[in-house]
């Protein structure tokens, strides 16, 4: 398994909580597009032995670019890389920019999964966190998506937003059930430094729900999703059977992926070494370096074996299916249940982990206190 991630760093408006690399400056869209195409072509010979099973175009807001751009990027990807026939190809979109023209263009180029940023079905809350769409825009976007041929649709939602209540959270989820959306990513708000929301909370202007309220929202939300046929398959991800996101599962399986575009991250086995690197997060550098036919790569690091093992644990335990002992043995020649026996026995005593024949699986409690559990693995 290997995936491709493509980053589109443009957004009509930056959300109050967002610290991803994206900006509302479309004057540089053309330059960016040219650089991205160069980057894709540069990687083509380097990736000629790999078959990619998933593609994910994220952002930013990919669908906010000029018509034709996403189609062109898809064509470049297909020219440059071997993408398997039944690959899962996702594009992110925001409800306001997911119009028929853009969505048809995606379907025509083989994009078969759409991930829509809804966040909440409460228009008042949407406005407060700086979103520029409404619940009605989402309904329209989903209708359009289905009309042009999308069946595999995800909605991102958030809890722990300022002024949000448990009822508002549940309303959003029920609304998604009524729309028959097969996949839901449900994230707790992470208050990141250097965001307008962070400043506003710090100054006391905005109050966040207290951690107990947020936990209540989360627990209630998870419960109603389970009741409505969605299975939690990762910390924050829920799907009807068969709709799990393969691209993200590849991350959690600590598989290979190639990141393209500004500030994208890659993990590849290069000449036997597990290697991570990322692209610059400076748009000017990105454009200039690719203009000079140079890959804008930063922080290339060979991951020592022990660290690669820990990464595999850290990511694997995010899945409700847990960390597969078989895959771990195949990859490292060691059984994680043996390798991490001291940490595991401590966590077992605490009721945080279970060891089955096939996997190491965190319990409900272990999922809730996952960081604590991981620190035990880390310490060992």
């Amino acid at each position, binding site marked *: 398994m290997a995936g491709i*991630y493509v980053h589109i760093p443009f957004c009509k408006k930056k959300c109050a909580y967002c610290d991803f690399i994206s900006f509302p400056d479309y004057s540089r869209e053309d330059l960016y597009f040219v650089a991205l195409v160069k980057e894709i072509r540069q990687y083509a010979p380097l990736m000629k032995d790999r078959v990619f099973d998933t593609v994910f175009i*994220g952002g930013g807001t990919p669908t906010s670019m000029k018509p034709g751009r996403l189609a062109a990027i898809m064509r470049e990807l297909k020219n440059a890389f071997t993408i398997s026939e039944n690959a899962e190809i996702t594009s992110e979109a925001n409800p306001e920019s997911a119009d028929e023209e853009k969505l048809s263009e995606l379907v025509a180029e083989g994009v078969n999964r759409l991930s829509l940023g809804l966040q909440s079905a409460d228009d008042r809350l949407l406005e407060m966190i700086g979103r520029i769409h409404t619940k009605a825009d989402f309904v329209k976007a989903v209708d359009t998506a289905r009309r042009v041929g999308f069946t595999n649709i995800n909605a991102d939602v958030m809890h722990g937003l300022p002024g949000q209540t448990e009822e508002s959270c549940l309303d959003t989820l029920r609304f998604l059930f009524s729309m028959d959306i097969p996949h839901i990513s449900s*994230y*707790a*708000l*992470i208050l990141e430094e250097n965001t307008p929301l962070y400043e506003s909370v710090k100054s006391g202007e905005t109050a966040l729900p207290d*951690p*107990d309220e*947020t*936990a209540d929202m*989360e627990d209630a939300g998870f419960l109603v999703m389970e009741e409505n046929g969605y299975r939690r398959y990762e*910390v*924050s991800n829920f799907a009807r059977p068969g709709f799990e996101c393969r691209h993200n599962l590849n*991350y*959690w399986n600590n598989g290979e*992926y190639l*990141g393209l575009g500004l500030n*994208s*991250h*890659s*993990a590849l086995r290069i000449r036997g070494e597990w290697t*991570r690197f*990322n692209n610059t997060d400076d748009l000017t550098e990105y454009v200039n370096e690719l203009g000079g036919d140079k890959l804008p790569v930063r*922080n290339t690091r060979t991951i020592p074996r022990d660290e690669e093992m820990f*990464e595999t644990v*850290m*990511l694997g335990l*995010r899945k409700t299916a847990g960390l597969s002992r078989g895959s771990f043995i195949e990859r490292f020649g060691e059984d994680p249940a043996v390798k991490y026996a001291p940490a595991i026995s401590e966590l077992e005593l605490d009721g945080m982990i279970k060891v089955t024949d096939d996997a190491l699986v965190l319990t409900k409690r272990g*999922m*809730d*206190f*996952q*960081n*604590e559990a*991981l*620190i035990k693995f*880390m*310490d060992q």
Partner: protein
Amino acid sequence: MAFPKELIRNFCIIAHIDPGKSTLADRLMELTETVAERDMEEQLLDSMDIERERGITIKSTAVRMFYKAKDGKTYMFNLIDTPGHVDFTYEVSRALAACEGAVLVVDATQGIEAQTLANVYLALDNDLEIVPVVNKIDLVSADAENTVREIEDIIGLPAEDAPRISAKTGLNVTDVLERIVTDVPAPKGDPDAPLKALIFDSIYDNYMGALSYVRIMDGTVRPGDRIRFMHSGNEFDVTEVGVFNPARLPVKELTAGEVGYISASIKSVAETKVGDTITLARDPAKEPLHGYKQANPMVFCGIYPADGADYEALKEALDKLILNDASISYEPETSQALGYGFRCGFLGLLHMEIAQERLEREFDLDLVTTAPSVIYRVIMLDGSVRLIDNPSSLPSPMEIQRMEEPTVTARIMTPSEFVGSIMELCQEKRGVFVDMSYIDSARVKLTYKMPLNEIIFDFFDGLKSRSRGYASFDYELGEYMESDLVKLDFLLNGDLCDALSNVVHRDKAYAKGRAMAEKLKEVIPRQQFEIPIQAAIGGKIIARETVKAVRKDVLAKCYGGDITRKKKLLEKQKEGKKRMRQVGTVAIPSDAFMSVLRIN
């Protein structure tokens, strides 16, 4: 050949804790070309980073200057820079005893402050000639005439013709030099009498060992002499004598009236104590100089490494620190909460803070410090007396007949508009009113008798905030008094946390117990279980708070492929855990132990 004694002037500068003093010293050195202007670094005499940052002097230093006066003669000036804080009163008094005169610098924008006054009295006690100087007259808020009046009224010194200067710009500073020539007496003393050298400070040098900073009162000392410290009885062979230029400059001899240093391969400053008298072993003086005192620590606290693995490093750091500062005491202690550490004693609060800061900075240590404590006298039922400097070692109330605590006489000078709220503060701190007098129509001097235990923590902060920074404060130690004291304990999830125990007056125990419990609730992070916090006196619970259990500790999002970011967050969380102390089942951040005391 020795410099003619009648042309020597030994003096110090007295000023409030303020860079003004060091700035004046810098100007004097410039005018006498002791250091070239281009080599001047602001406040040359204060050499420790902490001294520069805080604008205070901790150690005494000295510098020799040559000044060609208007009478055509060239004079040798020895300026001794003294510490300026109440914690170091004894060191100040010994530095003063090494001088014949003192330049009193009064800030024309502030007037005389409590600390200045205390040092003037010390100077008068040592029979010093005082040369008043009015500083900062370049500032618009300066009121030179009123300042002169204050000097005359409060100190009783004629000050009409006191130089009005700006140490910052250098304005009229030459007048100060002239006044030192005319007003400060030349030293007395007989170069041929048996040696009597007063140690006014000592420092540790990595290459030469402990150096004694001395004023030669009588006699002469040369390299090769065998010297004796009259109080300790220790003897050493002199390897070098020298003067401060301001860098150390070896000379052939130091003789009566001069100021310099003596190096004699001494291992630690503890062997060359401030106030001791150095004499020659072959021809000793009959009597040592007056005024020697053993400086005793007044304020104690536990110092622990934030990371238990650093215990040895802390021990080494303390060993090195006392090479330079013999007034710090320390002995190993253990705490259930904090593990292995040291009980350390200091001359006062500032001294304690500075020592902690030096340990953290110069030795790169992370420390946990417990609440400062004084020494309580505990009179047991059987009449025996125990001295207790650590609340957790207080005997059970059942065995105690009564307890006594040290008091101080506190002198506070404040603009009169703040008198009401400062008196309130003193009462809150169990102060007993002694006296109030008007310095002039706008300023008041208050005197209170107060328990030392009430002023060692946040009294000074309270004073500053209630007077918008205008009040100044000074204290001297008084006697012990009987007091109804109790030990306030804290239990976390049912386990006693010894590092939080403190001794308080019974009347204040409830309020303090409640306040500290509330603060603990703020600083103890939520954990996987609910944590009851209880304040207790004896077995009785007087306050209770609860830290609710945390419900989730998981990162919602994995930031796309940015695994590094997640790993870093986990690393950070792990580091945070390392900085926590385990008390029974409860983890407490290291800095919580001090922060819970900062209440109000």
